[in-house]
């Protein structure tokens, strides 16, 4: 399990756990970040928020928030970086 923030652009992970206060977890869960949901990184630059796709929705996430979502890297995607 690794934090979402460590995934590169184009990589996907499967949500395993959310760390944070109850409100934070409830908010993310409503947006579709529930265990088992696949998440794909659309943008992850070195600074600023990430953009990820979960359940067909694009969500911008602060770097702190993205660090508290733990995912399982999905197979066959190691080191893939898209332009």
């Amino acid at each position, binding site marked *: 399990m690794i934090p979402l923030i460590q995934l590169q652009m184009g990589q996907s992970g499967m949500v395993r756990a959310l760390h944070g206060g109850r409100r934070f977890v409830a908010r993310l869960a409503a947006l579709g970040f*529930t*265990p088992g949901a696949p998440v794909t990184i*659309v943008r992850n630059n070195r600074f600023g928020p990430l953009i990820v796709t979960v359940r067909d*929705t*694009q969500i911008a996430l602060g770097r*702190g928030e993205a660090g508290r979502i733990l995912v399982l890297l999905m197979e066959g995607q190691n080191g893939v970086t898209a332009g």
Partner: protein
Amino acid sequence: MASPLVNSSPPEQTAAKTTVIALAGQPNVGKSTIFNMLTGLNQHVGNWPGKTVAQKTGTCTHDGQKFTLVDLPGTYSLTANSEEERIARDYIIHGRPDIVVAVVDAAILERSLYLVAELLLLPSPVVLALNMMDVAEQEGIKIEPQVLEAALGIPVVPLCAARGTGIQELIATVESLSAGEISCQPQRPTILPGHQAILEKIRALIEDSVPVPYQPAWVALKLLEGDDEMCTLMQDALPEAIWKQVHDLLYQHEDAILDIAGARYQWIGRMIRAAVVRPKVGQLGMTARLDSVLTHPVWGTVALLAVLGAVFWLTYTLGTPLQEWLGDLVALLAESTRGALAGMPTWFANLCADGIIGGAGMVVTFLPILIIFFAVLAILEDTGYMARIAYLTDRVMHTMGLHGKSFIPLLLGFGCNVPSILGTRIIETQRARLLTVLLAPLVPCTARMAVIIVLTPLFFGDMAGLVAWGLVAAALAILALLGILLHRVILKGEQVAFIMELPLYHLPNLRSIGLYVWHNTLAFLQKAGTIILGVSAIIWLLSYFPTGVVTESYLTLFGHWLEPVGRWMGLPWQMMTALLTSFIAKENTIATLSILYGDLETALPAALTPSAALAFLVVQLLFIPCVATVATIKQEVGNRWTLVSLLLLLGLSLGAGVLVYQVGTLLGA
């Protein structure tokens, strides 16, 4: 608003009673467009009782039957995590609307059905409005409404609200449902088997104590989700010993929310499986193609600058000439009024011409820029581009404890602070919004810049350009520093979590934008307009009485009183009086100085040392904003925060002025 209470009239009268429809939906699903399409100008914008969240209600008629529509705040779920969520569910539970229309976005059906999964647990019957069928098609997604209807057991109506199709069918369906011609027998989402036992246990414990009109099963579920409001409610309602048992159970299942949400998504997956055909993997929709440029770190920034450039170009080529033209028109009107009142006492004619018409004129001259600004704001929001701006600027704004959404209001403050304050409405969290309102007056508006541009050359000759740029840079640096300070020290709430949906792009709906501009402009005229008019008449009276000569007026007297303060900054009473009159409108600074000094070009440089001149320019740039801005601040955040804002700016501007003068004098300038 029509009474939301359950109508107790006998059945034969139900045809005459109005049916109350609540519009529910997640943000960005086009709920407002549907509301606007149905109600048009028959709507009322106010606040929810005792809340700062806007409440929109309206009426419409279909086949002679009258409907009252209540637009609920857009929320992702119905757990009491935010004020909006609490309002939405309280209205459905306590207000008992006859029908809830749940608006979902066909292009992101799975996510937007999450709210529906919650709505189906509440007592009101639900009609599903499947909006943005056009956007779904554009993204390559095909949906069969009848299949979805069969799965969910509730009426489903496909629409493209932005193009106006499906609206009549929607209201017809609502009518049939309320007349009992069609039925609503929803499939309700269930909880995971693992949690069924614990849910039952909680329900059994609370069953006898749940207050009306709540349902025990629903309350038990919300308790398990960790809902604060329900916890407080049941803590008060239950005997202490039983609450302790409930509390212990909840404590052992603290993470239940994830499983409950997961179960809802599993249920949604079953509901849509047969109804949705998804695009082939790797096929890019329109949004993905646009975003490959618009959220790109380099090209996205270039595009943002181009869009902002276009906005400013529009404001200046369209707004400024219109504003000047209206100003001339008002001046003409003032003169003819003065002429018409020639028989009356001079002071009365002058009050009407200068104080009242002048004040009203100022309100009117704000309109072109305000209207352009509201239209731009509505278009950026409606197309989905606003969220991209917030994403691109979030990093910069974050250092000041602000959300990326604060960027646009602050930036457009360079045009005028009034729309900048009004624009903070797009910021979701109250704290970030307040911080933005407090910082907004520090953005130098065109009127302040005009004063700087006129006065700087008089004092600094060839160096004027450099000094003017330096002043603006200093104002912005102070804004950033104050932001960091307020965020860290005074308003130290939780760090603003940045979780924001980037909606799919779609074409804006003209009617929606028109209504947005109309309602916001009207609200400005009604609320801020009256205050501006009153204050400008009072200041005019002070500058006129007792003798009719400005230099002998009460206002000048106040200026003399302020002389001791002025002395710390090397400023004579004339300069202090000019600052006072700048409260009506920043441009007044120049007019007042001309009256008090005569020829500015020779008199001003002689009256002030360079340090005092710089101090004056700094003070005037940071001083209390004009009355229009102050009135708008009051309208948006209330008396207490307006006072905080005024004191903050007063302290900041005078403090900076004293500092500049004293340091400058020490350095021998």
